[in-house]
């Protein structure tokens, strides 16, 4: 669900469009002929055309009076990937069901209209449409307009409902090879492996305890058992997940990077974060050059979404700093992503500095 849902007022409007204008002109022509000739059949046809206009207004008016729409927006989207917006449409009218209703987002041309072919009296249906975001950041949806020309398409009537939703659009996440990080760290050693403080099925020594029924005989510490005259077994530590500290270098440079280069760097950072989380790494993010608080290192999906949110909300128009990048205190593998050419001197010696364009070599191979 999008953030900050607020239902407020709705506003009804009538719209002129070409079919209606042409129909009205034709009606006037027939009316002129009927007045001039005074023939009953011609008058009947003229009256019939007028009746069409009246009935069109009456039916669509009654129908639209009972239309209520509520947007069900997702909380996140991704640049270039279709975002599915859903609308809960209710018919409150006691007289007319809803037919041929189109819902469009006001001021959002990138969103296709959602169509409701039918919604019975007192019923509720869900319509869907897709919207392809073109840039990361906050996608603000303020109002939606439900339009219908039913039954004859002569008059277009609409109801605008104000409902503010905010969708955070993440940078483009390019699918990378499963071993993308291993490839990056190949030859450098230290892929961020360490032992954790909890028991597990790893190889590192954790402690000793008394033998319990069911323990494997291989785990028995025979020497220590002999000295204690009781069986004790060796407990192992659980293997800690590998850790990846990503740093996005957006510091001020001379000459400055182009906006496109920076966006590519952001997208690459997002892709690496996504790839790392999917591969079981604990990932952390630090954005250098902008006011950003470094995140902790976790491997959960929720943590990834938070990091992607942070990337999505980076404001490249704000002032940059020339702050330095400190060495990571954690035992994590560090990657510094530069929008342009890597500047190894500006990064800790243990960090891997790569250019954003390096991502091309890590693309997932699709059949």
């Amino acid at each position, binding site marked *: 669900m999008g953030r900050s849902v607020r239902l407020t007022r709705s506003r009804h409007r009538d719209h002129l469009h070409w079919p209606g204008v042409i129909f009205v002109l034709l009606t006037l022509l027939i009316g002129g002929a009927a007045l001039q000739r005074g023939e009953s059949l011609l008058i009947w046809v003229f009256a019939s055309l007028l009746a069409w206009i009246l009935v069109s207004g009456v*039916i669509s008016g009654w129908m639209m009076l009972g239309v209520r729409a509520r947007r069900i927006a997702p909380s996140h989207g991704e640049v270039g990937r279709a975002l599915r917006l859903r609308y809960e449409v209710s018919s409150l009218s006691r007289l007319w069901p809803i*037919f041929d209703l189109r819902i469009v987002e006001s001021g959002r041309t990138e969103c296709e209209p959602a169509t409701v072919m039918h919604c019975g009296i007192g019923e509720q*249906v869900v319509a869907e449409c897709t919207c392809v975001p073109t840039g990361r950041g906050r996608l603000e949806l303020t109002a939606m307009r439900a339009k219908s020309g039913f039954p004859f398409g002569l008059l277009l009537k609409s109801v605008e409902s104000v409902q503010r939703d905010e969708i955070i659009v993440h940078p483009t996440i390019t699918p990378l090879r499963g071993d993308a990080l291993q490839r990056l760290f190949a030859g450098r050693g230290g892929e961020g492996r360490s032992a954790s403080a909890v028991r597990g099925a790893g190889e590192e020594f954790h402690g000793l305890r008394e033998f319990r029924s069911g323990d494997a005989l291989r785990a028995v510490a025979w020497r220590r058992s002999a000295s204690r005259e009781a069986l004790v077994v060796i407990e192992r530590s659980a293997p800690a997940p590998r850790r990846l500290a990503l740093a996005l270098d957006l510091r001020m440079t001379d000459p400055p990077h182009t906006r496109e280069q920076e966006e590519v760097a952001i997208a690459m950072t997002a892709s690496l974060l996504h790839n790392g989380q999917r591969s079981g790494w604990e990932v952390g993010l630090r954005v250098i050059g902008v006011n950003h608080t470094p995140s902790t290192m976790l491997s959960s999906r929720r943590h990834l979404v938070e990091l992607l949110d942070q990337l999505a909300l980076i404001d490249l128009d704000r002032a940059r700093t020339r702050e330095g990048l400190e060495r990571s205190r954690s035992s994590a593998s560090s990657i510094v992503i530069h929008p342009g050419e890597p500047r190894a001197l500006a990064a800790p010696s243990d960090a891997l500095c790569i250019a954003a364009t390096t991502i091309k070599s890590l693309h997932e191979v699709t059949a």
Partner: protein
Amino acid sequence: MSEWRSFRFQALLFAAMALSAFAFSQQSALLLAVVVLGTALSWTLVRRTTTIRRGEVTHAPRWLAAAALIALLFIAGVWGYTKDDATLLPSAIGFSISLVLLWRLFARRSLSDERQVLMLSSVLLIVAVLESNDLLVALAVLSATMQGVNCVIRYRLAAAAQASHITETLGRGWFGGVRAVVGASPRADLTRTIRIALGLVFAFTLTLFVLFPRNPHPTGGLFALRSGSASEFSDHISLMSPQRLTPSQREMFTVQWLGPDGEPLVAPGILRLRGVILELYDVATSTWVGRTAPRQRFVISEGDEFQSLTSSQVDERFNTFTQRVVIRQLRSDAIFSAWAPISILGGTAQVYTFDPRTLAIRTMDIESAGPIVGYDLRVQPFASDGVLAALHRGEPRIPQPPTFPVESIRDEALAILASAGDGELARESGADDPAARWARNLRIARVFESELTSEQFRYTLDLRKFIRLGDRDPIELFLKQYRFGHCEFFASALCALCQSVGVDARIVTGFLARDFQSTAARYIVRESDAHAWVEIRTGRFQWTALDATPADNLAPTSSDDESWASVLRVLFEPIERVWQLQVAQFDARAQNALVGRASESLNHALRTTWSALEQTALRTGQSARVGVSGYIWFGSIFVSLAFTLAAALIWSRRLNRARRALGVGRRDRVRARAAMRDGAFYVDALDLLSERGIARPSNVSPRAFVQIVRGRNPRAGEIFAQIVERFYAIRFGGERSDARARAHDRLSVGALRTALSE
């Protein structure tokens, strides 16, 4: 049948109605046959596709559509070749549209094609209406206007389905892609909506048709009839603005010619039905007008008896025929009668004026008395001088020989007489010897008639090249310059030539009954049968009809030329009469009469009701004799009843709201009462919030609404949250309330009120 296929069928029906309407308007059996066959073939003999996907629907193979188009164009070419008349432009347009429409029916592949079919059909309907307002056309048009509602609604849905990519499932229907939470049948809803729309369109159309402002005094000339712009018959001939006239096949009236034994007969030759007699020519306006008749008589027709036009009894055993006229589309105060009428029987009570000098009959006040639906006349085509004297009511004064106001016409007349070797006739006056005068009249008129019917003069309805030159009179231009025109010019020329040399002549306008229909044993008189000819005085009472119009244009229509429509008409004659009299001739007078009747009925009903109420009140007062205390007592009862009614209404409204809130059906009265008792506090809370401007949107759940209330008033939100939880416990938890719990609930609502007031 899927919605898509159903829509295609409805569109085909609409097109068939439009095509039929046009065929009826043209009275073309060939076109009707082509239409019926074409529409049927387009639906049945084309390739069937069982699995229909987007953009691919049932349609004809291309070769078949092309062959059909070639065949139709060939038929159109043959038709155009046989109709050598440049004035048939509307018909030509209609035929072209018909052909294109038929072709489209064979090549319907997409929604765009269907839209074209609907638009072409609509245009064709308008052309049909402009061409004719016969009953069959009217039936087809009325059906099509209603069918159009059905088609356009379905078209809108088809367009919406295509726009929303639901057309992927067009073969199965338009509503498959929509998920309904609770399921009313879309098809049933659509059918119901279409029916309601049809009802509304019909009601609005009928109302607007009745209320449409109509011209109470439409004008039109004799040949304005022929242009199809009016159905009135003019009482003058104007030669001022020659134009191209279009012969109209609109049927004005029918005539039966009954013998003395009452059997229908075919009249010998062409039956000339005299309407208006024009004797004077106004040079300034180039107009023939009638003489003001001082000797008019009034004949009141009532009942079933013929009213005699003569001053004395006339022997009707011999040489007397009955002319029975049934009006169809003509609206005129002139009575069209063959020579010479002796008595009249009107279809409705009418007052007629009879001019003994011209034997012309008219109705008195057509606006107030209503249109003439028909009349019977007894006529004697070969009336004796005695009968004519009885019609004249005495010996008429023999007038002086006439003169014609345009001098140059006399020169032309003298030249014609001289060239015919009858120059001496012009010098004779015959004023002293009436018999010689009548003989001279006829002889001179024959010479002129012979001249005008010669090949030097040409009959045409297209007078666009008849251009007025300076101040020259149109008759002079006709005789000396152009030598072409229609019957008005021929009659004007003959009459002018005759009057210029002192021959007693007058123009008669009316109709020629020449299309005898053997099926119904009657003549059909059409607009195109309107005609003008000349009468020459050949006796003290006798006048002889002469026609200068070339005879080729006056040929009687053979009974073999009867159209299929005429044959069919026998079957639906009563319906057609109703159509013509009640609908087609629904004019300002009928409109006023209808409004008057409605107003009178309403007034009568109101007066009757008011009178009944007065009487009841009076009787009650008289019988009760209640006095002041009694009135107070009755007043108290009335106020109590009013309060009780108001309370019942409020209770009912609250009960319904509680029912809806708690999901209790109307039939479960016990649960409904329990719901009202236990859940009323929730309804009260909602009412309270609504009064303070926080109405719950119907698509927001109660718990979601709590968040909205919290956003507006946190304190009220907290209290309302408790109320909602309690409501949920009752609604979904099956909890029952005792008196203590209900009191607590009421207190919660009170607390909410307080919180909202803070």
